[in-house]
């Protein structure tokens, strides 16, 4: 009998109940919250559901040494986590993004690229603020990239510059991307006048297939020569786009933007979520990162809108740009462009800004990859 009791005691020590801490439970609740938001509100469900469930997986209290945790060498989760740690999931996602992105809006109005550049100020604003809060430059760079509003880029850069902060940075980036409509709308309304919101932009010209094929090649050569450290992201983004536009690699493009990106998104979400173990995630630094992440989105949106307003001072007639597309420079494809469309139609139901906003939106993807390359070059 005593033997049975002893064994039951032994078993008890291996259960989650015996090893649970309030931090684990808090993280599990956050995971459930993420899943609830994704299902109820429909905010970034493809990311928040895997991340939320990953948080639950990563925070199941367990007896250490069973070789099952995400940070234990050789475990299943650890093997899957290598794609995040070594940084090869994000470029694969970029391959899919390239294969699903239509750069026509950008090619037809290349001047809109500059809005994408202006919105990257959010990255560097957050970098400066992070330094002020006492982070080291490499950590500050990794935190700053949240302002790029690009999850894969944030994971890629933080895995290189500050792996310890990656969980908080990734969760922060994806959370704020899900909250783009909530964050951006009031800023856009506060910074624009009613007259400006009613500006109608001319319909973009038709883009030829030749231009679409040339774009990924020239775009890649130019950006990669300027910032070679952005090679994994830029290379995959433009390669994916070439697969889409070449017209002769349809099957490859469909795989890249379909099954491949789905598989990688599932794995990246799940493992990033699982990496947020309470002991590594619930720290003062994580709170600072969340605050800085929010500020980076605010700065990026503000500068994007103000940049268009400033630019409009030098433009005349139908060359003027509706400042409501300024927010779209912060990547977060296509949510921020959708915000431009929705807010624009609130004031003029006939004013469709989506097509125009997609220009700075995809420029933001290129801009954030370039910015990540610069930060990696200087701080990596």
């Amino acid at each position: 009998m005593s033997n049975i009791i002893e064994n039951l005691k032994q078993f008890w020590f291996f259960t989650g109940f015996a090893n649970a801490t309030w931090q684990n439970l808090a993280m599990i609740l956050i995971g459930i919250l993420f899943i609830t938001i994704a299902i109820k509100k429909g905010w970034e469900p493809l990311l928040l559901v895997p991340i939320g469930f990953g948080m639950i997986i990563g925070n199941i209290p367990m007896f250490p040494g069973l070789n099952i945790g995400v940070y234990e060498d050789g475990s299943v989760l650890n093997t899957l986590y290598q794609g995040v740690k070594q940084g090869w999931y994000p470029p694969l996602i970029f391959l899919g993004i390239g294969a699903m992105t239509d750069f026509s809006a950008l090619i037809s109005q290349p001047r809109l690229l500059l809005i994408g550049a202006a919105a990257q100020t959010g990255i560097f604003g957050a970098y400066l603020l992070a330094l002020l809060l006492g982070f080291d430059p490499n950590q500050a760079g990794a935190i700053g990239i949240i302002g790029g509003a690009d999850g894969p880029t944030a994971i890629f850069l933080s895995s290189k510059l500050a792996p310890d902060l990656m969980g908080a940075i990734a969760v922060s980036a994806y959370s704020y991307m899900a909250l783009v409509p909530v964050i951006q709308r009031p800023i856009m309304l506060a910074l624009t006048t009613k007259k400006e919101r009613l500006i109608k932009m001319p319909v973009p010209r038709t883009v030829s297939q030749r231009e679409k094929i040339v774009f990924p090649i020239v775009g890649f050569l130019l950006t990669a020569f300027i910032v070679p450290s952005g090679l994994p992201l830029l290379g995959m983004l433009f390669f994916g786009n070439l697969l889409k536009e070449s017209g002769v690699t349809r099957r490859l493009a469909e795989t890249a933007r379909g099954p491949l990106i789905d598989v990688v998104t599932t794995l990246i979400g799940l493992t990033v979520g699982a990496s947020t173990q309470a002991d590594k995630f619930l720290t003062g630094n994580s709170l600072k990162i969340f605050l800085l992440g929010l500020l980076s989105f605010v700065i990026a949106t503000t500068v994007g809108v103000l940049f268009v307003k400033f630019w409009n001072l030098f433009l005349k007639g139908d060359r003027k740009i509706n400042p409501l597309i300024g927010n779209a420079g912060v990547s977060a494809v296509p949510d921020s462009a959708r915000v431009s469309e929705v807010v624009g139609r609130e004031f003029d139901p006939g004013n469709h800004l989506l097509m125009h906003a997609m220009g700075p939106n995809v420029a933001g993807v290129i801009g954030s990859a370039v910015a990540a390359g610069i930060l990696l070059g200087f701080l990596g």
Partner: protein
Amino acid sequence: MRHSRIILSIAITLLCGLSLGAQNMSDLLIGEVLVENTCGIVDGYGQRNGWIELFNTSNGTVKFGGCYLSDDKSNLKKYHIPTSDRSAQLGPRQSVVFYTSGNSLQGTFYTNFKLRNGSTLYLVSNDGRTIIDQVEIPADLPADQSVVRIPVGVKEMEFKTQVNPNPTPGSYNGNVDAKTKSQVMKEQDPHGLVLTLIAVMVVFSALLILSFIFGWIGNYNKRDKVKAPKPKKVKKGEMDDEVVAAISLALSREFGSEVYAAIALALDDYLVGGIHDLESMIITIKPTPGSEWADKTQNFRQLPR
């Protein structure tokens, strides 16, 4: 003009290709050489011998099994590094030490010759002919001092040769206490303003140049713009050959949803005049939701039996 563009494109491609380098034996380097060892490192047999340090300059793993070491140009195959030894490989920027004991039976990392002052040491590729690297040993090299190749420059991919009074067998010959880039930035740019300024300028420049290039390409394309064909003049009730062919093709064969696309295209051709989407060569067909498992067409046989 068209030919010059093609030649320019090929030239750019070749130029880019030149900068690509594979991780192979040519990335090896003789990092350090010591001839007379009286008070330095002891080998696995408790002996003090001269030694040769090989260094992998690349950022990938390099296998050196099959290479040769020699101090005689007329016999470059003097010591053959065993190909079968799995430990005969070097990780990125790592080094390995060979003891010049004169007795190769002691193991893979023991050469069958002893070094002499005034000689030249050769590292030879596995073909036995190609000299990968060579080091001249000064005739007056003092005991316990080595000839070392120190990495210099920003990339640390160039090396200067000098005599080293403090030999470092198996260790990196450069500055082992070098600071990380982040530490350097923390000292030089504590508030981050310089980095921010440079980064913003680079992002703007990159996208500005891209904007100019595509502005130019767009203007160029406007000149070559493909004009939409004018609607064909067809008498009422008359169908041209293309329309007839498309409709009959659609109705005569089982194509699933492509039937509707073909009919739509044919009608568009007939009524609107054949202005097709210039952006894509793909007909967009909205797929039927579900698996179509109950679709009658799934039960049809192609050939009646």
